[in-house]
C-alpha cells in the first residue's frame, strides 16, 4: 500500500472545507509552538517578564538567545577554524577509523559464525551477541578504564604493575574501540544474513567446479552478499557516524564538544545547538540518500540479473575462470 491516496477518498466540497479548517488549525498550532520557543529563549516568558501582548515581549531581547551578539561568533572565521573544523575533523577521523575496523570485524565474525567448526562458530556467536546486547556507551567507558583494569589484573597473574604512562587509552581510541566492537557486531549479522541470502545454487555450482571453501566464500558468496547488503551497510555507517557524538560524554573533542565549548564561551547555547544539528543532519541525510540510491541501483541491476540467468554458461566461463587460473 504505497499510495497514500488509498487511505481516503478524493475530497468533495465538504471535505475540502474541512481539510482547509484543519490546515488552518495546524498552522495556528505550529505558530503557537514556534512563538513559545521564540519567547522562551528570548527570556520573555515566566516571572518578571513583560506582559505577553506588549511590544517589549516580542522585541529581540539583548540578553536572550536570539540577540545578534549570540550569532556573531558564527560570522567570525576564527570560530570555524578554531572550533568547528577541528571538531568535524575529529568526528570524521573517529568515524573513518571505526568504519574500517568495524567492517573488518564484521566480515571476520560474520564468516566465523558460518563456520563448519563448532569451536569457531559458537565463540564467534557469543562475542557478537554480547557486544550487540550491551550499550555502546558502556563499551566506551570500559575502553577508557582499560589501563586501570590491566593494573588490577597484573598482580593476580604475578606480574608487576605497569609503569605509569606506558599504557594509556586516549579518548579517540576509546571511541573507536567502542564503535568498532558494537557496529562490527551489527555488521557481522548483516554480512551473515547477506551470505545466507545468496541462492544455494551459487555455492553448489562453485563447489562442483572444484573450488574449496575459502575460494567459494571469497570469490562467490562475499561479493554477492556485499552487493545485496550495501544499503544496510551504509545505513549502519550512518548510525556509526551519529554515534561518534557519544565521544562528547568522555570529553573527546569532536563536533558536538566543539559546539558545546562555543556555547559556554559565548553564552549562545541555542544558536550553537541549532547550527550543530544542521551540520549533523546535512551529513547524515546525504549519506542516507547514498544508501537509497544504492538500493535503487541494486534493484534495477538485479532485474537485469534475472534476465542474465538465461545465459549462465557465458557468465560462468567469464567470472569463474579467473579465480581458478590464479590458484
Amino acid at each position, binding site marked *: *500500500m504505497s499510495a497514500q491516496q488509498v487511505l481516503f477518498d478524493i475530497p468533495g466540497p465538504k471535505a475540502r472545507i474541512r481539510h482547509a479548517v484543519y490546515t488552518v488549525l495546524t498552522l495556528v498550532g505550529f505558530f503557537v509552538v514556534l512563538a513559545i520557543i521564540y519567547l522562551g529563549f528570548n527570556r520573555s516568558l515566566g516571572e518578571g517578564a513583560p506582559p505577553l501582548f506588549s511590544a517589549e515581549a516580542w522585541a529581540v531581547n539583548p540578553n536572550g538567545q536570539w540577540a545578534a551578539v549570540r550569532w556573531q561568533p558564527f560570522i567570525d572565521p576564527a570560530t570555524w577554524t578554531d572550533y568547528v573544523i577541528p571538531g568535524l575533523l575529529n568526528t570524521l577521523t573517529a568515524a573513518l577509523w571505526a568504519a574500517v575496523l568495524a567492517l573488518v570485524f564484521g566480515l571476520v565474525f560474520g564468516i566465523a559464525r558460518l563456520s563448519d567448526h563448532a569451536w569457531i562458530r559458537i565463540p564467534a556467536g557469543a562475542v557478537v551477541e554480547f557486544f550487540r546486547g550491551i550499550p555502546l556507551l558502556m563499551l566506551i*567507558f570500559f575502553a577508557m578504564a582499560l589501563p586501570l583494569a590491566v593494573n588490577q589484573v597484573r598482580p593476580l597473574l604475578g606480574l608487576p604493575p605497569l609503569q605509569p604512562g606506558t599504557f594509556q587509552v586516549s579518548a579517540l581510541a576509546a571511541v573507536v574501540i567502542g564503535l568498532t566492537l558494537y557496529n562490527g557486531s551489527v555488521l557481522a549479522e548483516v554480512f551473515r544474513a547477506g551470505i545466507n541470502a545468496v541462492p544455494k545454487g551459487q555455492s553448489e555450482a562453485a563447489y562442483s567446479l572444484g573450488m574449496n571453501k575459502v575460494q567459494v566464500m571469497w570469490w562467490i558468496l562475499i561479493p554477492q552478499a556485499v552487493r545485496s547488503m550495501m544499503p544496510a551497510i551504509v545505513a549502519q555507517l550512518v548510525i556509526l557516524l551519529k554515534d561518534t557524538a557519544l565521544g562528547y560524554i568522555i570529553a573527546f573533542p569532536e563536533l558536538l564538544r566543539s559546539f558545546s565549548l562555543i*556555547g559556554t564561551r559565548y553564552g549562545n547555547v541555542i544558536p550553537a545547538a541549532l547550527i550543530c544539528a544542521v551540520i549533523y543532519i546535512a551529513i547524515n541525510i546525504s549519506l542516507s540518500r547514498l544508501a537509497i540510491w544504492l538500493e535503487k541501483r541494486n534493484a534495477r541491476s538485479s532485474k537485469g540479473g534475472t534476465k542474465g540467468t538465461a545465459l549462465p554458461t557465458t557468465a560462468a566461463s567469464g567470472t569463474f575462470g579467473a579465480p581458478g587460473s590464479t590458484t
Partner: protein
Amino acid sequence: MEAFFTNIDKVIDGFSWTVRLALFSALFSFILGVILTAMRVSPIGLLRGVSTVYVETVRNSPLTLVLLFCGLGLNSALGLSLADSVAWDVFWWAVIGLSAYTACFVSETLRSGINTIPVGQAEAARSLGLTFTQILRLIIIPQALRTVIGPLGSVLIALIKNTTVASVAGLGVQEASRQMKLMFDQGIAPVLPTFVGFAIGFLVLTLPVGYFFSWLSKRMAVVR
C-alpha cells in the same frame, strides 16, 4: 566479583533508573510515534509535511545532541522545571528527549508496516463508507501493528540501550552506566568484574525483550 556484590545496592539503584527511563520513554514514544504516523498518511498536506520534517530532523540528529538540548537548553537555559527534586527533574527531561528521539523510529517502523497491508483492505473499508480516522483506527493500524511487532521489539531494545546516554552532562541521570563509571572512577570496585556485572545486567534486560517480541510476532502474525 566480591567487590561488585558489596556495591550491589548502587547497581540496583542504577538499573532501577534505567528501567524507569525505558518504561516511560517506551510509553510516550509509542504514543507520539502513532500520532506521527497518522499525520504522515493523513489527507492534509500540511500535517504530512510537519510529520516528515520532524522525523527527518530528529532521526538524523545524534541522541547526545537531543538530550543535551533538553538538559542544557530547555532545563538549564530556559529554567523549565518538571519536578521538585533535581533527580526527578532531570529524569523527566531525559524521558522527553528519549521519547522525542525514539518516536521517529517507531513512526518509521509503523509506516513500513502500513506499506505491507494489501491495498484491498483500505479500498474495502472506503467502499463501506468508513472515514479516514475510522480506516486508520479499525483497519490499518491494528494490522500494521501486528506486522511490525518484531521491528518494534528492536526499537525497544535500542531504547533500553540508549537510556545510557541520559548520563550526559547537563542531565546526569544516575542510571546504570553512570553508576558503573562512578565505580570505576572512585576505584571502589575492580574494573573487569564490574563491567561484566553491568553487562550481564543489560543482557538480562535486553535478551528477554528480544525473545518475547519474536515470540509475540510469530503468534500475532497475520496469515495471508
